[in-house]
């Protein structure tokens, strides 16, 4: 018996109780995780989703191009997409924030946030568009967009509210590297970029060695929510 399969047995004993209680199995060889919880709520009545998800329709749009925003308007969405495309651009390393659906994450997060956060975006995006001139921010060249964003980051662009840039950057990172259940990190492109394999319930001693290659699993928490997602 190899060390790895011994490890797997060790972790799944006592197997009968394990399966009964969790309704979730780790296959010793494949590590495939099969879901699903038959019920979304426990006997003690756990209920609502996380604040980020509360009240949102998280239907992933079939096409990102056709995404209809729920918090921002169409012009604001255009500016937002152009901005996040510079914060994490598509390049030879892989897709960027737009392809990852980060704008979906941000728009849906804003729909569940305090009005102050939405106002921060509305003012910030409007000021960005104004500062870019008649063609708007999306109409600038990549180099000019970067130059303007650098000024925004430094706080030297008129009418951009304090905190706008750092909020935008933080949300962009969350959308890119957070779980796809929140609308970003589409096709796990953020996790692939940074080297995170996805939710991997069993890390063996071999997996935890320095230099070990751990294959991407592309498992989202969506798989554990069952009908509750």
């Amino acid at each position, binding site marked *: 018996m190899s060390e790895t399969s011994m490890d797997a047995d060790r972790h799944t004993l006592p197997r009968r109780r394990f399966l009964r209680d969790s309704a979730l199995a780790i296959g010793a060889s494949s590590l495939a995780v099969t879901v699903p919880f038959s019920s979304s709520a*426990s006997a003690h009545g756990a209920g609502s989703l996380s604040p980020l998800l509360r009240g949102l329709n998280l239907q992933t749009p079939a096409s990102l191009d056709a995404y209809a925003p729920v918090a921002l308007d169409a012009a604001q969405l255009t500016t937002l997409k152009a901005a996040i495309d510079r914060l994490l651009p598509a390049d030879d390393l892989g897709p960027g924030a737009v392809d990852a659906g980060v704008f979906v994450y941000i728009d849906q997060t804003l729909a569940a946030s305090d009005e102050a956060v939405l106002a921060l975006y509305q003012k910030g995006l409007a000021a960005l568009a104004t500062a870019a001139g008649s063609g708007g921010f999306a109409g600038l060249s990549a180099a000019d967009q*970067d130059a303007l964003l650098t000024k925004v980051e430094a706080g030297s662009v008129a009418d951009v509210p304090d905190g706008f840039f750092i909020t935008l*950057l933080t949300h962009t990172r969350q959308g890119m590297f957070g779980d796809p259940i929140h609308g970003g990190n589409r096709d796990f492109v953020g*996790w692939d970029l940074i080297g995170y394999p996805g939710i991997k319930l069993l890390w063996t001693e071999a997996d935890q060695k*320095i230099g070990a290659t751990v294959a991407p699993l592309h498992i989202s928490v969506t798989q554990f929510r069952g009908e*509750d997602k």
Partner: protein
Amino acid sequence: MSNPLPKADVLIIGLGAAGGIAAYVLADAGIKVVGLEAGPYLTNKDIIKHYDEQDMGWDGASKAAKEIPTWRPDAKSPTAPPAIPGSSMVMANMVGGTTNHYGTQNWRLRADDFQARSDTIEKYGEKALPDGSTLADWPLTYDELEPYYDQVDYLIGVSGKAGNIKGKLVEGGNPFESPRSREFPLPPVQKAGYTELAAQGMTELGYHPFPQPTVALSQPYDDRPACTYCGYCSMGCWNDSKSSTRVSAIQKAEATGNLEIRPNSRVMKILSNDNGEVTGVEYLDENGDLQTQPAGVVIVSSYLYENTRLLLVSSSDYYPNGLANNAGNVGKNYMSHGYVGRNALFPGKSLNLWGGMGGQATAMDDLNGDHFDHTGLGFIRGAVIFASTGALPIAISQSLPAGTPTWGADYKRWLHDNGNSVGSILAQVEPLPYEQHFLDLDPTVKDPLGMPVIRVTYNFGENENNATTYIDGKLEEIMKAMGASETWPSFPARTPVAINTHAYGTTRMGEDPSTSVVNKYGLAHEAPNLMVLGGSTFPSASGYNPTHTIEALAWHAADYLARNLKSIAV
């Protein structure tokens, strides 16, 4: 339900680390216990739905939802947002409390931690104690508590390597620890490449690293499976292989038939009579209806902030300034652990830290307590230091060395090249208690139920600032010895976490009723059938995580209560 409800022998407010162990000991002794828990009763099926770096909600079970305190640095300043956002956000209201989702570190104090004041004076003189410090020895010794640490170890299942068994040093464990009566019930958890690297670096510098004790099961124990190192420990365990009190003690207490748990039940007031004895509580049940639950003994074990708040809001004719507070000691001597941490880049090395957790760590005690000469350093006591596994992608995307691009193509390339090559090390620095640091009721801010929230008045003193600066320099040296090319703060030195998951004092235990609130069994000096359990009773903080000592003290206290119930209960 009818009002008042049938009287309970013992009522426990809060079924977390302290309340969970107390419930087990009392129920096992045949005593009828009612447990009121403000949060829900979740299972691993609920918990795994939150395996998401952005989701710390636990179905609304966060204590912060109803209890978040306000903060000010000193009594002359207005309240303000803390420099480090309140980590009380990650305390949980649920059956098992924060033992469901803590990092699994499971430390005993050492014998000297129980007498830090007298040890310091003996070695360095009275002047070594900073002005205003109220540092005190504990009213019990390590030897008195050791059998209870041991019983907790074997009830819940703890993984580690002894360094000292009955006074004999054992290879591979912590050479500084105080004598254990026997080896850990389970061997240390799985080694990771990174924890081995840390052990090498620390050894190279002359330190004495060892596997950190943890309640993650290294092997099956007590019909529960071994840890799978999934990396989502801080959201709770999907597999029952973390020894939360929920799976290791509370469920056993329920099985005796002597513990009745009422989840989603929030206590609003502890009731007392004209003799100063407690008689029960008023609480909002899961339907939001006010209930009166009489009890012979009331145990308050709802974490430090809520322990203090419940006492302060439960005033009466006998206790005009709050329950058990006629001497004015409730809320005093507040301490919050100091932290200092560094991240470091190990270029070209795939560290594979995504799995694991804070408890899967190499630790060292060489710079803790008085294990090094403090002469001329400007502080007393020290820190436990550990390098652990566990990393999640958003956090990695946000922690960058100085000078690294924070957005754009170069940022993206940096993350691509280095996202799996960033390691971390953390130190927990022992803070001292001071006269000027305390909790009281906020005069203006109320929670959603209309109850005043706790106001924290706390800052680091010069002792704490000097200690974190000193330790920070040592962390840099250790990371370099491990092969890091550069390091940067993951947690800034000289910055207090005023509202903390490691908080101490405020219902101090002691022998003198004029300077403490409870005795060594947690029984209030002023209200003899009121017991207070948890970190709020600690006279000093130590450098270690508090949970194991909270659990051992709860066992010690509940054992005493079980043997003396007739004389204590009213």
